[in-house]
Every structure is written in structure tokens, then in C-alpha cells.
């Protein structure tokens, strides 16, 4: 039987706690650390001395003080020296970043992921290459203390294997293991569900700081969720907890990628919104072969820009296109729905731009009838933004689509509020746009379906970290070990 924690364990715990403070709150004076941690001054001094010697923090004189007396030294994280690699694997994008202690993104690379059958190599390859590029650029005295990835799918807590990812098309993928092997840093790669990690990120660095009970909803192609209860992420038995996207809200509803009917994700996800808005392009015909279809669209010669081949289908070209659409709409036709589908309308610079596909063409045939529309169908966040934008400008079809999706979203949130009684619900990813564009429906549903005492103090917020929420969450996951046992991890990483 043990009497209690040993001196060594207490010291390790305190070192970790101090480092965590500096990591999350940024440069903090010793005096403030003494206050916040409830330890005496000499202990704080000894702890910072240890961390300084290890090269995790450094102490500096504060720039200016407005108080009398000897200024207290400020403890800063060694952001430029101690770092982790964080990866974000979304349906449409792959991001790799080098994140310094304290949460500073030091370096970052991003590429577009093509929707299609899942291939481990197509995900791991680019990410590992990015990491190698970034690693090469680091100074010799820097040290990598962890690697982690956010993955759009359910991750088994036991072995880090991605068990399911309906929107990625992935099943039983040993992503962490393969990533670790390819990086060759000698560090294990921790893997977490992207929405779970987004919840942690918003909880530690975002809009949910200081909030003990929150739910983060992440919209990518599907809907993910992270539930934080009393400051701890709800993982469930094997780590699959928080999959709110697969909460069935409409048993006779739309088919979901998971095989069920009427999941929240099937009613609210990207596909539901785009179909309702009559903007679901190529994927209606060949779900996993969109890029190919776009290439072979017959009307490509008539288009002003080069047809979007696989290479040019980058984020930039997509956003450039949405920009030119915006310019077009500002210029002329207030209701895009009035433009005959498939027609080209001159834009500001005179070149023809394909009309919006927002015409009331909700039938699945629409894509076949309108080849030029198909060839330019936006996907992902850009498509969602285009719907919200069209609704804002008075497009009735887009408005009806948003309102429908907002209604289902409100129903889902009402259920979550009744079960978990969170203090805050955060809308992230594409749900930020959906919430802001359909807040009236979402909150009307809450007013009718959520229990009054549970909704009374509920705060609905959009993500403060935006598109980086999941990446920041991955970085925090990567820092977990060094924050738990700073000296040990550093010693191992340095050797």
C-alpha cells in the first residue's frame, strides 16, 4: 500500500503544471504563477530553474512595470526551440504544421486532397513530405517533442487505428503507425478524431476557455462532435464518443454514408445543403469520381478558364472562382435564380462566367442537363459559402435550403442540450457559416425543443480558431506528453 505520491512525482506534476500554464497563457510573471498555482515563491523559482535548464522556458525582465519594487521575472515558453508536428487530415485538405511550445504556428503547409477512394499513401505521402521539408528548415538546437494528427474519422483509443471514416472512404487504417514509420523521427504519432481535437482546442485556446461543459460541432463534409464534460473530453469506452453526426434525427430521412437513414450528418452535412440548394454537382452521378467527371465535361472548351484539371483544382482556383462570382453578383443580376441555368453571363472584365447553378433545379437530373454547371460545381467550404452568399442576396432556393438544414441542425443541438446541458455549443468548420446563415431556424428549434432550464443559460458561439481548430487540437495532443513529464520527454527527444 502506498502512503501517497513521492517527492519525485509531486515535482514532476508541478513541472508539468507550470509548463502547461506558460504554454496556454503565454509569458507569465513568476509572481502571477505563484498566485495561480498556489505554490510558494521558492518552489516556483526552483521549478522555473529546472525548466530553464532543460531549455523549455526562459526568464526575462518584463518590458515595463507600472508598479513599485523589484519586477518579477517573466517566464516565457521557448517557442522557437521546442516544437511538435501537427497534422490535419480532412476530406478536402491535408495540413501539416510545426507548432512551437506556447501554441505558435511556426511553419505550415497545406494541400488539397482529392475526393476519391481512400489511399493511405495519398494521405501519408504528402504529409510526411511536408514534415521533412519543415524539419530540414529547423535550426540544429531545436527539438521535436511530439507528433499528432487529427483525422476525419473514428479513432480507436486502444491502438490509434482509424476504424471508420465514411466521408474519407477509410476503414481500419493504421494511420498513426504508418505516419510514424514514414517520418522516421523515432516518435509515436498520436491520432485523434478531428472534431474531438477541435473541441479540446476551443476549450484550451478558443472561445470555450474557462468553460467546463461544452460541445463543439465540426462541419466538414459530415458532422463531427466533441463533448467536454466538466473539463474532460468524453471519449467513451473505446474513444468513439461524441459522434453526434450519427445521431439519428429523422428515421425516414436521407441515407447517410454510415449506412443508416436520417443521421444528423445526412440532414445537415454538405451534401444535404448542396442538394437542397440544387447545387450538388458531379457527385450525384458518380460519388467517388467527381474530379474525373469534371475533366470530361463536354463544355470545357467554351469556358474562359482552363477546365479544372486535377492539378488546377486547388483551393486558390476555387476561391478565385467564388471571388469572380461575387464580383458578378455585385455587378448585375440581384437574383441569380433568374439567370437561365447553364448560360454564361458577362462578368465585370467582360469574360463570360458560367451562371450560378442556383436555379430551382433540385432534381437529380439537373447535373446531367447542365454540363457546364457540373464542370464548375464547387465543393467543400467554397460551395457552402456560395449557398450562404446566394441566400443572403435573396436567392429563394438557397434560402429554403439553408432554412431546412438550419431546422435539422437546431433539432440536433436541442437533443444534445437536453442530454448534456452544456454551457456552450460551438459551431466550427462549415457549420460556422451554416449557423450564421440559419441562426433563426436553429434557435427557433431550440426554443421549442430544448428544455427551458437547459437552454436558459446556453451560449451559442462560432469557433474562435476557425479553420485551424482541428490543427490546433492536434498540436495540443502532440504536446500532451511533454506537459505531463517535461524533463523525461525532453531527455528522450534530445538523445
Amino acid at each position, binding site marked *: 500500500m502506498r502512503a501517497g505520491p513521492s517527492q519525485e512525482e509531486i515535482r514532476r506534476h508541478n513541472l508539468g503544471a507550470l509548463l502547461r500554464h506558460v504554454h496556454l497563457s503565454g509569458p507569465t510573471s513568476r509572481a502571477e504563477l505563484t498566485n495561480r498555482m498556489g505554490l510558494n515563491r521558492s518552489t516556483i523559482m526552483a521549478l522555473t530553474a529546472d525548466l530553464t535548464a532543460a531549455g523549455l522556458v526562459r526568464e526575462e525582465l518584463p518590458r515595463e512595470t507600472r508598479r513599485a519594487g523589484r519586477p518579477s521575472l517573466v517566464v516565457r515558453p521557448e517557442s522557437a526551440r521546442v516544437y511538435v508536428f501537427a497534422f490535419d487530415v480532412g476530406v478536402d485538405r491535408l495540413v501539416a504544421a510545426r507548432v512551437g511550445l506556447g501554441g505558435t504556428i511556426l511553419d505550415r503547409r497545406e494541400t488539397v486532397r482529392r475526393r476519391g477512394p481512400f489511399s493511405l499513401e495519398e494521405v501519408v505521402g504528402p504529409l510526411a513530405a511536408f514534415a521533412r521539408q519543415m524539419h530540414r528548415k529547423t535550426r540544429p538546437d531545436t527539438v521535436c517533442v511530439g507528433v499528432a494528427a487529427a483525422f476525419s474519422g473514428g479513432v480507436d483509443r486502444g491502438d490509434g487505428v482509424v476504424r471508420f471514416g465514411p466521408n474519407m472512404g477509410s476503414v481500419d487504417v493504421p494511420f498513426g503507425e504508418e505516419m510514424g514509420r514514414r517520418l522516421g523521427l523515432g516518435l509515436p504519432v498520436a491520432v485523434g478524431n478531428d472534431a474531438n481535437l477541435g473541441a479540446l482546442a476551443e476549450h484550451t485556446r478558443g472561445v470555450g476557455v474557462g468553460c467546463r461543459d461544452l460541445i463543439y460541432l465540426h462541419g466538414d463534409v459530415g458532422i463531427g462532435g466533441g463533448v467536454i464534460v466538466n473539463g474532460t473530453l468524453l471519449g467513451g469506452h473505446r474513444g468513439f464518443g461524441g459522434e453526434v453526426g450519427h445521431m439519428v434525427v429523422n428515421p425516414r430521412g436521407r441515407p447517410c454514408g454510415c449506412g443508416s437513414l436520417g443521421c444528423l450528418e445526412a440532414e445537415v452535412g454538405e451534401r444535404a445543403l448542396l442538394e437542397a440548394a440544387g447545387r450538388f454537382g458531379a457527385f450525384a452521378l458518380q460519388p467517388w469520381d467527381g474530379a474525373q467527371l469534371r475533366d470530361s465535361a463536354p463544355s470545357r472548351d467554351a469556358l474562359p478558364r482552363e477546365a479544372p484539371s486535377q492539378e488546377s483544382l486547388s483551393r486558390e482556383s476555387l476561391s478565385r472562382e467564388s471571388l469572380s462570382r*461575387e464580383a458578378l453578383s455585385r455587378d448585375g443580376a440581384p437574383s441569380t435564380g433568374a439567370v437561365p441555368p447553364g448560360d454564361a453571363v458577362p462578368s465585370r472584365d467582360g469574360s463570360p462566367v458560367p451562371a450560378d447553378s442556383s436555379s430551382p433545379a433540385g432534381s437529380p437530373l439537373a447535373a446531367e442537363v447542365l454540363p457546364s454547371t457540373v464542370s464548375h460545381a464547387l465543393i467543400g467550404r467554397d460551395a457552402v*459559402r456560395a449557398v*450562404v*452568399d446566394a441566400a*443572403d442576396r435573396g436567392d429563394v432556393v438557397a434560402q429554403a435550403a439553408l432554412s431546412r438544414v438550419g431546422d435539422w441542425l437546431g433539432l440536433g443541438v436541442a437533443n444534445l442540450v437536453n442530454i448534456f446541458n452544456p454551457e456552450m455549443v460551438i459551431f466550427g468548420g462549415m457549420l*460556422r*457559416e451554416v*449557423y*450564421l*446563415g*440559419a*441562426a*433563426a*431556424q*436553429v*434557435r*427557433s428549434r*431550440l*426554443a*421549442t425543443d430544448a428544455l*427551458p432550464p437547459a*437552454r*436558459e443559460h*446556453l451560449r*451559442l*458561439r*462560432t469557433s*474562435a480558431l476557425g479553420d485551424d481548430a482541428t490543427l490546433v487540437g492536434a498540436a495540443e495532443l502532440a504536446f500532451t506528453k511533454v506537459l505531463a513529464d517535461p524533463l523525461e520527454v525532453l531527455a528522450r527527444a534530445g538523445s
Partner: protein
Amino acid sequence: MTPVLELRGIDKSFGPVQVLHDVALTVRAGEVTALVGDNGAGKSTLVKCVGGIHPIDSGEYLFEGKPVQVHSPRDAAALGIEIVYQDLALCDNLDIVQNMFLGRENKRGIVLDEDTMEEMAARTLASLSVKTVKSIRQHVSSLSGGQRQTVAIAKAVLWNSKVVILDEPTAALGVAQTAQVLELVRRLADQGLAVVLISHNMNDVFAVSDRIAALYLGRMAAQVKTSDVTHSQVVELITSGRSGDLGLTNGVPA
């Protein structure tokens, strides 16, 4: 908790036309109060009464629980009430810092204290997490609509104000900029300010507000918690002054 701003029984006439009848309004710190109503319902007049541009004919004006007299915009500003009007009132030929301090410049002796002003402006913009502005020495003429709105809001916040009133801050903005301004509005309240948001857009109102005050033909139809009402109820309050148990009965608040 005492409301920051409370109006009771406000009447206001312009000549023979009575614009506000017995209007009550309560504004609390840390909350966004949406002020809604049809065109001509009296939203702008009410706000101008609060801001000291129009004197009120009768009624009580309480600030932090104490009755006060507000005769001019200067009185309102001294209390800590700032209004951002639709036209924003920014000078195109001045830079961001100059605009934020316009008419209230910091001085060191007889010269302007540019350094302090620049630092204060930068700190205010940073505290609002404004990242879209490249340089605070940029002329306002070079800014987009959303950025101008941001500068106008930051200008209102700079003065340790307690109440910020925004008149249609998202009108004439694109979707991306609207989202940023709405998030900024929410952040102001989360930092402890009392915010009054005038808007016609129900999504904007529901997205950020904690309470909704609906004016109908110069009367306060109802002031309700946003979490307790639906979209259609608010629309009914705006268009007919009542909705079920809520609203006016024969012109008298329930």
C-alpha cells in the same frame, strides 16, 4: 444585477407626430440586446434619444440604476455610451488611428501624442481580435466595408465605453464580412460590454443576441429572451405588435 441602461415611459414627439409612446428598454452588461422593428417603428429615434441627439419629452433615463439627464451626445459619451451609425462617420482622408481619436486626441503639451494613440489603437484592435487590417496607419479610404465597420466599432470601444449601440452594422456587407462583424459584436458582449444591435436581418439577430426588443409603431411590443422565442414569433411582433401571449393588447404592453 442592475441593468446598465434602463429607459422607462419614454415619450417623444416631433411637432404633432408622436414617434415614441411610453417606451421601456433595458440593456444589460455582457448581453447583446437586439432592437428590431419595421421601418418607421422608431428604432432610430429611440437610439438618438439614448445618444442625446434628441431630448426626450418625458420618461425616465437610468444609467447604472441612477437617473441621469442626457442633453447632448457629449453627455452620453461621458456616461460611456457610444453609437455607431450606419454611415459610420469616418473620415476617408485620415488613417485608422486619426479616425479613432478624431476630436478627442491625446496631447503631450501642445503636440499630439501620436505614440500613445497608436499604441492604444493597436491594443484595442488586438483585444477585438481584429486581424484583417494590415496597418493602423492605413487611410480609411483604402478599407473594405467590413473593415470600416470594424474600425468604427473599435473607435466606440476605445473609450472604456459601457454601452455600444450599433445601427445596422451588417447592412451592405458581404457574407464573409457579415460573419466577422457578427463575431465581433458577440465578442464585445462577452468581454462585458452592453451591446444594442439594430438589425433587420433575423439570422443576424438570432445568431448573436441574448434578448430581443421589438418596437411596433412607436411602442415597445415586447422585450424577450432570444432563447424563449421562435423566428415566427419575432416576425409577428414586428409586423403586428403581438404574438400569442406576447406583445401589445390594444396598444398596451402585456
